[in-house]
């Protein structure tokens, strides 16, 4: 039978579908108000902090940078988690997933497209946030350590990649986006605050419980490593060794791949019923 469609003769999984799906996620982000609200909040709070001049103390700059970066980290986590948590459940709830998956789109392409869209959207938000941060810091310190900022943005973005992949995995396991977002917030903040100390806790424990805590320590993605980069640019401690920077990038990529692989496996087995 001759097909009326002459432009496709065979089909393998490819990047075209992934980028098309990612494009829709990015459009959604810039047409929603979340990002603009968070950016405005960062600007207003940072300018308020900057307006407090205490005896021309140079440490005040660090205090402003610390406050601004903390807001940037929190805002980026909010954007990453809320955007990723609603993607697949919202597609199912609004039934937009059905016309989409009725097209030649594999479920793997769908999951990766959603991931890429969220991750790129987070990257775009980070560029805007750090641009403002750079302007504030440069206006006080009269210097702009471009490479250090590049390393910081990059590693921050890598960290968000792990978070987005984790949340997407959560969104195919948990039905409600709100419960998924809450659980992921707790897990991510838990890793950031306590993840680095789990080995010390395990040392104090004996036997099976200690082994379990050790296992958790080695299994979790150590997001706190990425968050610590914040300190480097607050105190202008210079560049991270590029070898460590590359290692941290590969570490993040491995976790992203692992989490996305799990998300695909779970989603692949899901029955989608109208």
């Amino acid at each position, binding site marked *: 039978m001759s*097909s*009326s469609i002459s432009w496709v003769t065979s089909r393998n999984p490819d990047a075209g579908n992934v980028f098309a799906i990612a494009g829709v996620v990015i*459009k959604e982000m810039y047409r929603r108000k979340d990002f603009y609200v968070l950016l405005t909040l960062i600007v207003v709070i940072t300018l308020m902090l900057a307006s407090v001049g205490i005896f021309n103390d140079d440490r005040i700059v660090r205090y402003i940078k610390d406050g601004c970066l903390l807001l940037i980290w929190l805002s980026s986590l909010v954007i990453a988690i809320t955007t990723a948590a609603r993607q697949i459940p919202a597609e199912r709830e609004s039934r937009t997933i059905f*016309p989409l998956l*009725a*097209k*030649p789109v594999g479920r793997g392409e769908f999951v990766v497209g959603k991931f890429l869209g969220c991750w790129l959207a987070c990257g775009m938000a980070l560029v805007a946030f750090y641009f403002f941060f750079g302007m504030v810091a440069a206006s006080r310190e009269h210097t702009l350590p471009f490479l250090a900022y590049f390393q910081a943005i990059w590693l921050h973005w890598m960290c968000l990649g792990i978070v987005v992949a984790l949340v997407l995995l959560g969104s195919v396991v948990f039905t409600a986006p709100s419960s998924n977002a809450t659980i992921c917030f707790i897990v991510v903040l838990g890793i950031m605050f306590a993840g680095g100390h789990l080995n010390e806790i395990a040392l104090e424990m004996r036997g099976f419980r200690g082994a379990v805590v050790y296992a958790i320590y080695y299994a979790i993605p150590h997001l706190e490593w990425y968050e610590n980069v914040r300190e480097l640019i607050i105190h202008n401690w210079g560049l991270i060794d590029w070898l460590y920077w590359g290692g941290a990038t590969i570490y993040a990529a491995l976790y992203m791949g692992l989490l996305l692989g799990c998300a695909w496996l779970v989603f692949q087995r899901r*029955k989608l019923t109208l």
Partner: protein
Amino acid sequence: MNTVVEIHDLRVEYRSRELGQRSKLAVDGLNLQVQSGEVFGFLGPNGAGKTTTMNVLLGFVSASAGSASIFGVDVREPIARQRIGYLPELTYYYKFLNAEELLRFYARIFRIPRAERDRRIDAVLKLVDLDAVRKRLIKTYSKGMQQRVGLAQALINNPDLLILDEPTSGLDPLGRMKVRGIIQRLKEEGKTVFFSSHELGEVETVCDRVAILHEGKLRVEGRVSDLLQQYQCNLEHVFLNIVGYKP
């Protein structure tokens, strides 16, 4: 004539998640063939297994047993969906996109070249009378307009097979007439249309053949004209007779 849709001994079972509940047999040993150029009506009361069968054809649900293919390709392969257009019963699309952006997105998925893409978008928007509002966000559309966007996205790849799940459900008489007109036009173009509907008068008008499903099993399959002659009544009465309705 070539076989477009082929379903062989299809069985779909839904496992119950609740303890003590037995699994539900949604489709039981279904055999069906749809030939090229046919308008095929897929009928049955609610819960008969129509939507489940469509879900299998579209790859949303895996068959517990049996097989299904479209254009000879196993429905589990994404490529099987390259030459089909699908309109779900309830159409919701990305509300933050306008009609043109939505169609562009779907056209990209079908890898339609850019020049062809623009031509197709213009053509389908004109066909469904949405050309004038193509730049308006979908969230501002009425229900009828959203249904027409749905039809437009189903036609964007100039499909050889259209799967329509109750395409006129919830539409006003004018909207129904338009959709019916489009189905008729597609039939004249030689397209294959596989659609489910509860509007039996409509089915009688546009379909060449029908299949009636009841409790997951195929009860009747045949040409509309043959069924009307055999039962000596209209399709609605044939349907009621087959599903065992007694007033």
